[in-house]
C-alpha cells in the first residue's frame, strides 16, 4: 500500500491505496464519488474524464498514486450552493443527455475545450469532444449545449 494525498473537488484526502488502483476506482470506491463513471477498458470512451490540475484526463488511464500531490476536479465538484454549473444547466436546457452515461465526461471535456477556446465553432466542438463517445449518439444536442454555454460565458 502507498499513502497518497490528493485534493478532490476542493477537499484534501489522505489515503492508503494499492499502486494498481486506477484513479477512477479510487474516486468511486474509496471517496464515494460515483458521478465519474467507467465505460470501457481501452481508454477510448471518455466517460471517466476529470480534471487533473485543471486539464482534462481520462481517470481510467492513470493510477491514483500518479495523482499524489495533485488536484482533481470531478463532475461532483461543479455545482455550487445548490446551483448547477452553467455547463450542466446548458446540457439540461438543450436536452443534451439521453441515458446520461456519457454526460459527466462530456461536461468535463466541454469545460476543458471552452477554457482553451471560449467561442468554439461547431467543428471545434466536435473535434474537442473527439475523445468522448455517446452511445445514444446524441451528439447534435451536445454540440448545441456546449455552444450555448460558451455563448452565455459558461467557461467558469
Amino acid at each position, binding site marked *: 500500500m*502507498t499513502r497518497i494525498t490528493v485534493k478532490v473537488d476542493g477537499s484534501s484526502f489522505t489515503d492508503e491505496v*494499492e*499502486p*494498481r*488502483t*486506477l484513479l477512477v*476506482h479510487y474516486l468511486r470506491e474509496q471517496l464515494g464519488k460515483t458521478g465519474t463513471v467507467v465505460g470501457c*477498458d*481501452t*481508454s*477510448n470512451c*471518455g466517460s471517466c*474524464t476529470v480534471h*487533473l490540475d485543471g*486539464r*482534462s*484526463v*481520462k481517470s*481510467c*488511464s*492513470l*493510477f491514483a*498514486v*500518479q495523482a499524489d500531490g495533485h488536484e482533481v476536479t470531478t463532475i461532483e465538484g461543479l455545482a455550487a450552493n445548490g446551483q448547477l454549473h452553467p455547463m450542466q444547466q446548458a446540457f439540461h436546457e438543450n436536452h443534451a443527455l439521453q441515458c446520461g452515461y456519457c454526460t459527466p465526461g462530456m461536461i468535463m*471535456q466541454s469545460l*476543458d*475545450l471552452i477554457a482553451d477556446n471560449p467561442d468554439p465553432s461547431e467543428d471545434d466542438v466536435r473535434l*474537442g469532444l*473527439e*475523445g*468522448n*463517445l455517446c452511445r445514444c449518439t446524441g451528439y447534435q444536442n451536445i454540440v448545441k449545449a456546449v455552444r450555448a454555454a460558451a455563448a452565455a460565458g459558461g467557461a467558469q
Partner: protein
Amino acid sequence: MIPAAFEYFTPSTVDEAVALLRDQPDAKVLAGGQSLMPVLRLRLAAPETIVDIGRIGELQGVRDDGDALVIGAMTPHSTVQADPLVGEHARLVSLATATIADPQVRHRGTFGGSLAHADPAGDLPAVAVALDASFVIAGPDGRRTVAAADFFEGVFSTALAEDELLVEVRVPKYTGWGAHYEKFNRVAQQWSIVAVAAAVRLDGDSIAEARVGLTNMGSTPIRASAVEAALVGRPATPEAVREAAALAADGTSPVSDLNGDADYRRHLASVLTRRAVLSAAGTG
C-alpha cells in the same frame, strides 16, 4: 479491468530510474500511460515492477540548443503541440502531434512514450525519421545517441534495451521550411491507416530540399527517399509533385488488415504524399 499487482517506484532522476530498471525484476517504464494502461488493464502485460518516470524533472520540456531543438521524453503531446519553438523550427512535429488521439490523451501521452512504443500506426516515428532526429538514451553504462533511422527495429521494437531509458530527442532546426502531416483515418480518435509527413524548403518556385516520411507502410516508419530525390530541383506544381509522389510506395511492405489491404495502402501512400507535399509547399 484492474491491472495485476506490481511494485511501484517513482525515481526523481534519470540515474535512479536506470538503476531501478537494471536491478528490479521484470521492470517496465510508465510514461504517460496512454498506451501502457490499456495493456495493463486488459492484462496483456503484467510486469512485476513499474518505474514511473513522471516525476523526473529533467525529462520535461523543450529547449533550444543552437542548431537543434531538444524535446524531453516526458513532455506531453499537448505541450509539444503548443510550444512556440517547435512551431517555429519543427512545425511538422506540431502538426503531427495535433492529430494524435484526442485532447485528454494528448494531456497525458508523451513525446518520448510515443516513440519508445514504436507502434507502426503511431504518428511521431515517421516524423522523427523524416527530420533526421536523434535519440539520447541512458543506460547502466552511460548515455548514447542513436539516429532515428536506426532506432526503430520492428513492430513495438526499438534500439532501447530493457534497462535503458529514452531521455530526450534532438530535432535539427528546419526554420523556414513548409510542413504538412496528411493523416488518413475514418473515425474519431483513430490511428493512421496511412499517413505522410512532409517538409520542404523552397527556393523561389522550386523545391530545394524535401523530407518525406511514411506512417504505417511497414513494420517501421519509412523514409521515402525516392520521392525526396525526385522532388529536388522541380517546381512545386501539382504535375511535378504527382510524378514524384507516384514513387511513394516503392520498396514498402504494408500490412493488410481490416482497415485496408496492402494495395489500398500503397495507393493511399502516393495520394497522401502528393497532398502532403503540395500543402507543405503552400501550393496544395
